């Protein structure tokens, strides 16, 4: 088990280190990276627009999309969400929290032997439906589950 270290920006030679990273092929140029962040989809303020933003104009409910999360969250700051897709040819998975101010939380593309699987922690502002959307050859399949965010603790 290797241990990662904070680096680059903590050092004075940030630019040099960045260049080295680029040379090593670990990072692509910042502009290119910025371009790969789907501003339209992530900026959407409702689930329908978010889906449109990732190209999912229509989705079919599917049991092949497996979504696991606790139905009750003691704290909305962290809601663990696990998604996997058994739809053949799945190339990406997106997670949408319908009642969040910006519903689209993440989209992952899988290639070179990566299984269509991801586990993440998301902030959930209020009790909401959580939707997972799998893209298989331009067709979109989805599953959803409710999560209830509760008030915890004795404090104010």
């Amino acid at each position, binding site marked *: 088990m290797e241990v990662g270290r904070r680096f680059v920006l903590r050092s004075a030679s940030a630019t040099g280190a960045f260049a080295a990273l680029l040379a090593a092929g670990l*990072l692509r140029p910042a502009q290119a990276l910025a371009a790969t962040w789907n501003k339209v989809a992530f900026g959407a303020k409702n689930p329908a627009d978010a889906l449109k933003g990732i190209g999912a104009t229509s989705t079919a409910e599917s049991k092949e999309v497996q979504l696991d999360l606790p139905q009750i969250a003691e704290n909305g700051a962290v809601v663990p969400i696990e998604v996997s897709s058994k739809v053949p040819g799945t190339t990406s998975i997106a997670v949408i929290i319908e009642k969040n101010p910006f519903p689209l939380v993440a989209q992952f593309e899988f290639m070179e032997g*990566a299984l269509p699987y*991801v586990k993440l922690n998301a902030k959930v502002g209020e009790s909401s439906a959580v939707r997972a959307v799998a893209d298989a050859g331009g067709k979109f399949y989805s599953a959803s589950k409710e999560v209830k965010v509760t008030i915890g603790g004795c404090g104010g």
Partner: protein
Amino acid sequence: MPGPMKIRATAEAGYTEIRVLMSHPMETGLRKGPDGKLVPAHFIQNITVKVGGKTVVEGQISQAISRNPVFAFRVKGGNKGDKVEISWVDNKGEHNQTETAVA
């Protein structure tokens, strides 16, 4: 300022489980600081996972990912000793990366 980062990659039956921990504030831009002003948005936007030099996962994420993000991914096959590299870039252009070998 990027804090520490950690990857754990374990060979399971038929696949490799990759788990990554990142230090990052993941500020939404919607939260008020102690001074009553909105704290500017500051969050990771892109994540890249490479195994044996090949990109296997490309992720785009929003400010709704929890502070100090943790992700798990799975890759078919994989052998002990294979190199796993993960890097991220946030909306301010800050970035970090680390690597490990499959155990």
